[in-house]
């Protein structure tokens, strides 16, 4: 374990041991910068993960620019690591006690269509003179739908040009690319973004590592104050082993991504078609084409997600669900609800995330056992019983 045992110098130290690890970090930085097509290595700041990067980007821009404006725009399908930050900032204006009432932040949460996509025109319509930040997730984690980030970025560039002419403040554009980095091409220039978050463990890097890409010239406050690390942007002794691991993951992803994408698309199509053929009342969630190659999210009517996950777990398959039982609240996934999926059906949703190690045999196995599991759970469900009775009444035909 080269950076956990042998090379243990603090990268901030002047002595030779520190310089060794310093070199390792800077090399990692170059690798990540190239991977994201940043124009300079210094635009890469290492963090503890996607959550920290999102907090850093959104709070950082909000606090640094609050004199100029206090309005943020985001979508209704963000991950909680963006959603909760926005909700937190909304509360900042309401101080209690003797403290003077400070101006808080206002947030617009843009709607999505039935595939879970944001419309760039809605972004344009939501912009006000006091808007300082737009943050839109690159691809949604639950259903995998990819957002038109490049288009939105281009739109904002046009608006910023007009604003510059009137000496008005720039609107910064951030995207949470945690779900897309390593799976599809993520190019900071192509995406037209000022800020981009990524998380190492999402593409086979170590957990607890991440990056915030910060385009040169972006004005933002640091989240962590202390030492002068990361050019005064993120205090704290660097997670050397993690950073080296993260860079390695980027290198591997760069090499494998195209080939993996093809394999995943093939497996995904096989799974989707298999489910549609063998399980009635199953609905694919997300955009049919503009979706991450690894994500398959289905809702099965009249059954509940957690019971499906448990049953699959018994057969050696790990999947996840947007049902309330697993979220700790009584509400099903806010993402599925935002897409207009009825609550009852959202409760029966399941997400399969395919990955590097999955094979065709895995898909065949899943397609063998899933219909039986669905049948068993439906045979126990009063909703299924009611549905069958209703369809007999409606059509006077025998249902499947």
């Amino acid at each position, binding site marked *: 374990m080269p950076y956990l045992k042998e090379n243990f110098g603090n990268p901030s130290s002047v002595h030779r041991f520190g310089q060794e690890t310093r070199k390792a970090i800077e090399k990692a930085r170059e690798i990540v910068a190239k991977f994201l097509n940043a124009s300079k290595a210094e635009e890469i700041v290492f963090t503890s993960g996607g959550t920290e990067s999102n907090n850093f980007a959104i709070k950082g821009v909000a606090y640094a620019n609050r004199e100029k404006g206090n309005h943020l725009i985001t979508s209704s399908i963000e991950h909680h690591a963006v959603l909760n930050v926005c909700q937190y900032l909304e509360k900042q204006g309401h101080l209690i006690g003797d403290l003077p009432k400070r101006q808080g932040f206002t947030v617009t949460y843009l709607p999505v269509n039935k595939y879970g996509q944001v419309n760039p025109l809605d972004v344009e319509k939501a912009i006000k003179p006091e808007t300082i930040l737009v943050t839109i997730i690159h691809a949604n984690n639950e259903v995998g739908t990819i957002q038109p980030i490049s288009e939105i970025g281009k739109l904002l560039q046009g608006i910023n040009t007009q604003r510059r002419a009137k000496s008005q403040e720039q609107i910064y554009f951030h995207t949470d690319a945690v779900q897309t980095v390593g799976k599809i091409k993520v190019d900071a220039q192509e995406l037209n973004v000022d800020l981009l978050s990524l998380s190492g463990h999402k593409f086979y890097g170590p957990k607890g590592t991440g990056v915030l890409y910060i385009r040169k010239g972006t004005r933002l406050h640091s989240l962590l104050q202390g030492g002068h690390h990361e050019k005064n942007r993120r205090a704290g002794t660097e997670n050397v082993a993690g950073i080296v691991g993260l860079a390695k993951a980027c290198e591997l992803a760069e090499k494998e991504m195209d080939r993996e994408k093809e394999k995943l698309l093939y497996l995904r199509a096989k799974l989707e078609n298999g489910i549609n053929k063998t399980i009635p009342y199953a609905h694919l969630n997300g955009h049919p084409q503009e979706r991450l190659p690894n994500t398959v999210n289905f809702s099965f009517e*009249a*059954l*509940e*997600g*957690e*019971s499906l996950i*448990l049953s699959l777990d*018994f057969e050696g398959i790990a999947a996840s669900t947007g*049902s*309330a*039982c*697993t979220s*700790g609240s*009584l509400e*099903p996934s806010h993402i599925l609800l935002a897409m207009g999926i*009825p*609550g*009852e059906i959202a*409760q029966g949703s399941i997400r399969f995330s395919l990955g590097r190690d999955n094979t065709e045999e895995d898909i065949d196995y899943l397609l063998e056992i899933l219909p039986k599991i669905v049948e068993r759970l439906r*045979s*126990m*469900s*009063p*909703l*299924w*019983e009611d549905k069958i009775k209703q369809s007999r009444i409606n059509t006077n035909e025998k249902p499947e």
Partner: protein
Amino acid sequence: MYSEKVMEHFQNPRNVGEIPDADGIGTVGNPICGDVMRLYIKVKDGIIQDAKFKTFGCGAAIATSSMVTEMVKGKSVEEALKISNKAVAEALDGLPPIKMHCSVLAEQALKAAIDDYFAKAKPRIDTNKTTNRHE
């Protein structure tokens, strides 16, 4: 997350099904919340002869409804009314705190089935009586 007993009842639930000529049926819960339980009971001479259930819900929901049907079979209606959600959870060797509401739902399903039994039994009990009240 779940005890072995809960998993056992989930994998091999007891008494799944309907009773076509049930003496009492109770349906509780809400599909939007992710939990719906329907309990059927067959009662003879005040004793619950048979109980069946159907549940739309998570592992804990299925396990608690399965357990409650086991617990009521052979009991009198009065005894069955005393079954609490805590008793159901204990019989399953406990539930995670966020899943305790499933045991509450199972208790409510049982009470709803018994209420239905009383409501259905009323005309038979009160034949030729002017009052609608019963014990």
